[in-house]
């Protein structure tokens, strides 16, 4: 057992931190809000250059074959600066499904590696809380030599900047299918919108969009297992982002407590605030431990993997709430302005938590297993 970074991880982390710190300044992130789809083209090209988009792809499919720990290291670094670019949708979730498809999509994977393609999963549906495996209302029906997709999807994360969509649908006889669709296909109406952290999502209505037969990536149990595994991997990476964000909050807040003066001394001299920092430290440390625990189970059976992940999600979700709430409290009035980092971390952690399934959802997953 070794909790120290490998040389590769150290390298990844150094380049990541250097680039992210330089590039993703508060001002820059605020300016991205005005972009059409939230995508930072310059950053995306750099992600490709630094190999991040290839990291999760198996070596035999042209990737770097990185482990989930490698991904977590990188994700934590992006979390430190509230990066809300569609990295996880593309480079974790998307690559996993494309690599694991009945016929792996090597060509598209290549485009991803090069920075030319971006993937979004289109899975959630109205009336669902946190999606399990099965879609209900969106169907895939045979139509000539291909299929037709129809129905309403909700909250497809990162769809606005994606070049390709992976759509889950009910397929008669198979129960379940994952289908690859080009994002500019005709036959769908899309409503794009931002989330609290600046990332984008879309509601998509398929009005009998037609696809070729080979657009189907996987069907039945295999598709379901592939999707669940991809979702768990994405959640794990988001938990790492949360941990990175919390650790940065510790840095921001402890610096603020030393710098900000009130009643004639730095406010960090007040024991009540010291103890708040100590509480934040304890849960952040525990959150990283929880992340490691989930990583330790990440390659085991689906049941073991998911349960371990949900345990981590509970710890990290609660920690994120405490750390970001108290982080604002320590900042006083400045904490609730858009002009200080801390409010951005608050929104970032809140968004990550609610995307990844809230405490209630994860408690149920643990309780049922």
């Amino acid at each position, binding site marked *: 057992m070794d909790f120290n970074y490998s040389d590769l991880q150290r390298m990844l982390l150094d380049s990541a931190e250097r680039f992210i710190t330089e590039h993703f300044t508060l001002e820059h992130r605020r300016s991205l809000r005005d972009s059409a789809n939230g995508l930072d083209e310059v950053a995306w090209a750099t992600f490709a250059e630094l190999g991040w988009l290839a990291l999760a792809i198996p070596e035999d499919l042209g990737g770097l074959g990185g482990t989930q720990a490698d991904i977590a290291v990188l994700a934590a670094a992006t979390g430190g600066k509230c990066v809300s670019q569609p990295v996880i949708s593309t480079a974790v979730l998307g690559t996993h499904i494309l690599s694991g498809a009945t016929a792996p999509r090597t060509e598209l994977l290549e485009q991803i590696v090069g920075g030319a393609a971006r993937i979004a999963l289109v899975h959630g549906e109205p009336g669902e809380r946190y999606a399990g495996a099965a879609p209900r209302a969106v169907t895939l029906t045979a139509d000539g030599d291909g299929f037709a997709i129809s129905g*309403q999807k909700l909250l497809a994360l990162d769809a606005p900047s994606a070049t390709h969509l992976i759509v889950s649908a009910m397929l008669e006889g198979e129960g379940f299918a994952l289908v690859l669709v080009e994002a500019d296909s005709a036959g769908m109406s899309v409503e794009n919108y931002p989330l609290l952290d600046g990332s984008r999502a879309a509601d998509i209505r398929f009005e009998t969009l037609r696809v070729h037969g080979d657009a189907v990536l996987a069907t039945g149990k295999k598709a379901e297992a592939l999707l669940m595994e991809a979702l768990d991997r994405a959640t794990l990476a988001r938990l790492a982002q949360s941990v990175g964000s919390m650790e940065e909050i510790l840095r921001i807040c402890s610096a603020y407590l030393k710098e900000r003066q009130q009643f004639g001394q730095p406010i960090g001299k007040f024991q009540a605030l010291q103890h708040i920092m100590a509480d934040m430290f304890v849960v952040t440390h525990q959150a990283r431990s929880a992340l490691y625990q989930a990583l330790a189970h990440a390659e085991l059976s689906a049941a073991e993997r998911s349960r371990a992940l949900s345990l981590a999600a509970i710890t990290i979700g609660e920690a994120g709430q405490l750390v970001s709430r108290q982080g604002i409290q320590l900042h006083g009035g400045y*904490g*609730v302005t*858009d002009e200080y980092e801390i409010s951005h971390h608050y929104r970032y952690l809140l968004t990550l938590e*609610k995307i990844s399934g809230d405490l*209630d959802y994860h408690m149920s997953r643990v309780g049922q297993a």
Partner: protein
Amino acid sequence: MDFQFDDNLVEFRQMVREAVKQDLPADIREGQRRFGGNQSDPHDSLTWTKILAKRGWSVPHWPVEYGGQNWSPMQLFVFQDELTRAFAPDTCWGGTHMCGPVIYTFGSEAQKERFLPAIINGDFYWAQGFSEPGNGSDLANLRTSATRKGDVYVVNGQKIWTSCAWMAEWGFFLVRTDPTVKPQRGISFLLINMKSPGITVRRIPQINGEAELCEVFLDNVEVPVENMVGEEGAGWTYAKFLLDHERTTSSFIYFNKRDLRIAQDIAANQMLDGVPLSKHPRFQGRLAQLEAEVTALEWSVLRVLANEQFQYNETAAASVLKVAGSRLQQTISELHLDLLGAQSIRQFPFEVHDRPNSPLWPDVTENANQRALIQRASTIYGGTMQVQKNIIAKLAFDL
């Protein structure tokens, strides 16, 4: 001991409810219901004040001679409870609850004549200029100066967290008129026209997209001496009077009750596995817990209103309302988000008229996170949670 409301209060509540039903314009009500106080058109508040004024109800808590209603504290409680319940906007609190009472208590006749009717009729907004950058909860450190030059004070300095300053016509400011005496003694209470030359206002973008709070820069602003309220150097006393005046406001009781009701509504409408969340034991438990807290808070407020002789210091009892009430504001709005799940994190445009209309997004989703985000401030402004606890430790226990 008697724990029953007076009989007349039931009728009184009914009377207020009917009146509000008649008077409150549907579009104002709907704006408040869907988007909460700050997001809907800010002028709704002044419009509503004028409507209330027609019944003589815009400042019912004032003495009758100045336009008040001579209602009992319990009646005032019921009145405000009904207004909030009906999603009526607040009046401009800076005028009706802060500066107004200071003016009729300590102001000159000329000031009363000039300003009280305007407050009663909601003619314009008032800005509150107390806080300064770098002194947060520490008013004694006030640095904005007012130097007498003939018939005017020349004011220089900077204020922060000045609510509504960008749309206010007048403001009430604490300024230092005498730097040579004890810090609390040299402070005065000045009414300043916000359109005066030398005033610059910068709206501060907030965590939830709004920009209601401002920085106000005062650069050689000339203020006629007749705009000083009461005596020079007594500003600290007036500020304390004003802050003590509404002992129960900081409980946010009306909002806590309303927000709890909203949570109950969301829970009844959000489904999980075909069952409303209100029937799922974990959410049901949280709702019960919050209802218990809100109910206890309401009775804590009633105890103050009914003038209970407290075993402990009264200011400490008022701090209880602030500590419990502000925390509740946060926990209830956190529950709103949890009930909405992933649908709680869409960012809607702050301005109402920019909002899309999507049937997939129930209107409660439009406001939930903006409310929840700004609630982080409720344990900060008006004396942080930590300051309140210091107060309690000192006043209740002499620690």
